[in-house]
C-alpha cells in the first residue's frame, strides 16, 4: 500500500492533522501581533511569508522532485508585476488581481516548463536560469509597461476586500497570514498526495517511474507549474506590502537566496525551508542593523552550516529525533517484526 493513503484511498489520514496544525499555526500568527504590538514584528513576518513561500515552493522542485531550478524568482516577480499592473488599472478587486496573477504566472510557467522539464540535471538548472534572465530583461527593457529598472511606480492600490481595509497594517498582516497558511497547506497536500509520492519516485529513479507507466514529463511539468503559482503568491504578498514591484525580484540573486534558505533549513522536513527563511531573514535583519559587512557575516554562517553540519538545521533536528527513536524501534518485543532501519543513509536527501 502506498504510504499516506487510507485503505479506501479517498482521503489521506494525515490531512486532518495537517489542517489542525495549520489552524494552530494561523492562530499563533494572528495572535502574535496582539501579544507584541510593535509594527516591526508584523513587517518582519510579512517578509517572512513572502520569501517563505518562495523557498517552500522552490523546495517542491528541489527537495521533492530533484529538479534544481536556478530561476524560480522569475515566477515570484511575475506574480508581483501582474498583480501590481492589474491593481494599478483601478478596475479590478484584490481577489481578481490575485487570481489573475497566480493564473497568469501558471500560464507563463506552463510555457517555460514545457521546455525546461525535458532537460535533466545541470541542463535543467541552466535553462531555468536563462528563462529567468530573459524575464528580468523583459522587465528592465519594457519601460513603458514595467517602469524598467525604476520598478513599478505610483504605488499599488488596496481597495477594500469583503469590508476589510487592507490599508490598515493589522488587517493587511492578517490577510497575508491567512494566504500564507493556505498556500503552505496546499503545498503540504500536494506533497503528501499520490502525485507527491510519484514525484519522489521520479526524483529517486526516473527510469523506473517511466517503466511503471508514469508520464515523467507531465508529472514534472505539473509540479513546475504548481510551484511557480505558489511562488507568485509570495511575490504578490511582497508587492502588496511594499506597494511596488522591482526588477530585483526577478534577478538571479533572489533565486540564489531561495536556494540558501533551503540549504540553511534543510529538505528532509516539509517545513525545513521555512526554518531557513526565518534564519536568513533574522540574520539579515539584525546583521544589517550593526554592520554593512553583512555579506561577510552571512557568508560565514552559511560556510559553517555547509561545511560543519553538511545539512540544514531542520535536518540536524530531524536526524537527531530519528536517532533517538531508532533504539526504541530497534528493541522489538519477542516475536515482533524487525523494525525497518531508518537512519541517515535511508533518508539522506529526501523530503518526508
Amino acid at each position, binding site marked *: 500500500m502506498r504510504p499516506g493513503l487510507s485503505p479506501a484511498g479517498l482521503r489521506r489520514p494525515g490531512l486532518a492533522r495537517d489542517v489542525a496544525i495549520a489552524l494552530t499555526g494561523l492562530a*499563533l500568527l494572528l495572535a*502574535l501581533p496582539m*501579544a*507584541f*504590538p*510593535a*509594527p*516591526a*514584528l508584523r*513587517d*518582519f513576518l510579512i*517578509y517572512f511569508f513572502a520569501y517563505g513561500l518562495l523557498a517552500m515552493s522552490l523546495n517542491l522542485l528541489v527537495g521533492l522532485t530533484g529538479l534544481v531550478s536556478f530561476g524560480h524568482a522569475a515566477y515570484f516577480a511575475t506574480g508581483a508585476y501582474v498583480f501590481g499592473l492589474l491593481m494599478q488599472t483601478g478596475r479590478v478587486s484584490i481577489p481578481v488581481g490575485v487570481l489573475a496573477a497566480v493564473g497568469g504566472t501558471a500560464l507563463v510557467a506552463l510555457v517555460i516548463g514545457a521546455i525546461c522539464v525535458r532537460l535533466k540535471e545541470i541542463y535543467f538548472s541552466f535553462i531555468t536560469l536563462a528563462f529567468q534572465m530573459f524575464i528580468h530583461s523583459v522587465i*528592465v527593457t519594457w*519601460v513603458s509597461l514595467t517602469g*524598467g*529598472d*525604476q*520598478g513599478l*511606480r*505610483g*504605488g499599488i492600490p488596496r481597495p477594500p476586500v469583503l469590508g476589510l481595509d487592507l*490599508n490598515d*497594517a493589522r488587517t493587511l498582516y492578517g490577510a497575508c497570514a491567512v494566504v500564507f497558511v493556505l498556500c503552505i497547506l496546499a503545498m503540504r497536500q500536494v506533497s503528501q498526495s499520490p502525485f507527491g509520492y510519484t514525484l519522489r519516485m521520479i526524483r529517486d529513479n526516473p527510469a523506473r517511474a517511466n517503466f511503471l507507466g508514469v508520464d515523467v514529463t507531465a508529472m514534472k511539468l505539473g509540479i513546475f507549474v504548481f510551484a511557480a503559482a505558489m511562488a507568485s503568491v509570495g511575490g504578490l504578498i*511582497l508587492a502588496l*506590502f*511594499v*506597494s*511596488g514591484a*522591482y*526588477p*530585483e*525580484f526577478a534577478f538571479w540573486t533572489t533565486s540564489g537566496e531561495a536556494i540558501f534558505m533551503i540549504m540553511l*533549513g534543510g529538505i528532509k522536513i516539509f517545513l525545513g525551508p521555512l*526554518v531557513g527563511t*526565518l*534564519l536568513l531573514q*533574522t*540574520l539579515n*535583519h*539584525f546583521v*544589517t*542593523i550593526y554592520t*554593512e*559587512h*553583512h*555579506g561577510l557575516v552571512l557568508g560565514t554562517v552559511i560556510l559553517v552550516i555547509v561545511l560543519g553540519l553538511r545539512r540544514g*538545521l*531542520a535536518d540536524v*533536528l530531524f536526524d537527531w*529525533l530519528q536517532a533517538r527513536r531508532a533504539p526504541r524501534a530497534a528493541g522489538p518485543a519477542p516475536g515482533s517484526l524487525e523494525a525497518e532501519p531508518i537512519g541517515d543513509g535511508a533518508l539522506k536527501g529526501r523530503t518526508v
Partner: protein
Amino acid sequence: MGTNTVSGRAPSRRQVLGGLAAGAAVTGFPHIAGAQAKAIRVGMPTILSGRVAILGTSSRAAAQLAFRQINEAGGINGRTLELIDRDSKGRPDEAAKVTRDLINNDGCEIIIDGEASSGAFAVHEVIRDLPVLCLHTCSETSSLSADPKLHVKTAFRCARQGIHDAVAGGTYAARIAKQKGLKRWMTCSPDYAYGRDNTAEFLEFAKVFEPSIETVDQVWPKLFAPDYTESITKILQTKPQAVYSALWGGDLVAFIEQSNLYRLFNSITMFSGGLGDPPVLTAIKQLPPGLNTAYRYNRNYPAKPANAAFADAFAKIAGHEPTNWAWQTYLACQFMAEALKRTGGRTEGTALAGALKGMTLPAPFAVGDAITMRDTDHTIIGYPVAWGRTVPKAPFVEDFSDVDWSKIVELEAQWKKSKGYA
C-alpha cells in the same frame, strides 16, 4: 540572538513560543526606547555596500557632519538630532523594509532618504503609508517629484534632477557646438533606462538650442562593463566631432582610462554628465584636460567661504572630497533643521511639510543667494547646474559656466506639459 532561539532547538510548543516572544521583544523594545528618548531620531536608508557604496557612505558622512554642527549649536529647542542609518544593499524591497523598520522599530520621526532611484520610489511609497517627513537626497529621476500622480504630501526631493541637468547640459553643449562648429555627435552611455533617458534628454535640448547638431551614431555598453574597447574603437571609426556620455562612477573611470590609451580625446570633444564628482576625478590616473563636465560638486564653486568650509569639514570625516550626494544630503539636513525650528520642534510630518513648502535657504551651494524648496512639486531649484572643463590637478574642474535658472524653469514647464505632468 533570536535566530538561535527560534530555529536551533527542539520544536516543542513552549520553546517555539518562547523563542518568538524573545525575537519579538528584541524587535519591540527599541521602539519604546525611541519614543521616550529626548533626541529626535532621523532614519537614513541608503546603500552602504556593493559597487555604489560611496553613494551611501558619503551621504552618511554629510548627515553626520550636519547633525554634529546642529547639535553643537544647541540642537532643536534643546533636543539633539540622532542619525540612524541602515543599509538597503541597493534593493528596493529592502529599502522599503528598512525604512518601515526605522520608523516603526527605531522610532525615527524623519527620514533622510539616501537611496538611488528605484529605492527612492520604494521609500516614497512607504512614506505614503507612514507619513513622516521624508527628504530624498540621491534620486535624480525627474518623475519622482514632477509626476503629480506620485505626489506624497510629506515627501520632498533635495537633489538635482534629470530635466534640470538636461536643459543646462543642452544649453552649454549648444554654445560650445556653435563656438567650435561641432556638428557630428556620438553618444556612449550605459544600456539601461537612466542611460538612455539621460542621453535622449541631453540631445533633445542640445538640438533645441543648436539645430545643426546631428547624431551620427550611438553606442550602448552594458552597465558595469569592465572593457570599453569595442565602444572606443567604434567611436574612432565613426570619427564624430563630439561625444556625450552618461556613464558614471567606476564605469566612467574605466572608459576615460581606456580612451586615454587610444588618445581618443586628442581629436574629439568630450561631454560628460557624471565626470564632475570629485571621487571620479581623483580616481582617474591621467585626467585629460579640456573635457566638458556637469557640476557634481566642487569646493571652489560656488566660490563661497561656507562651501570651502563644508568641503574641509566633510573631508575630515570621510577622508575624501564631498560627492554630489554629500552636498545634497547636507543641504537636506539644513532644510530639515530649519523646518524643525519653524515648527518649534514639532516632528509631525504635515507640520514639517507645511514649513518646508516654498522655504528659501541661504545655503553654501546656492548659485544666487538661496536655494528654494519649490512648493508646487516639492523639489529644489537654484542649485548649481553649471558645466566646466577639466584640468589635470586639483580642483580638477574650472571655468564653470552656469545657466540662468529662469530659463531652466521655463523649459521645465514646457517639458512637464509635454509629459502630461502639468
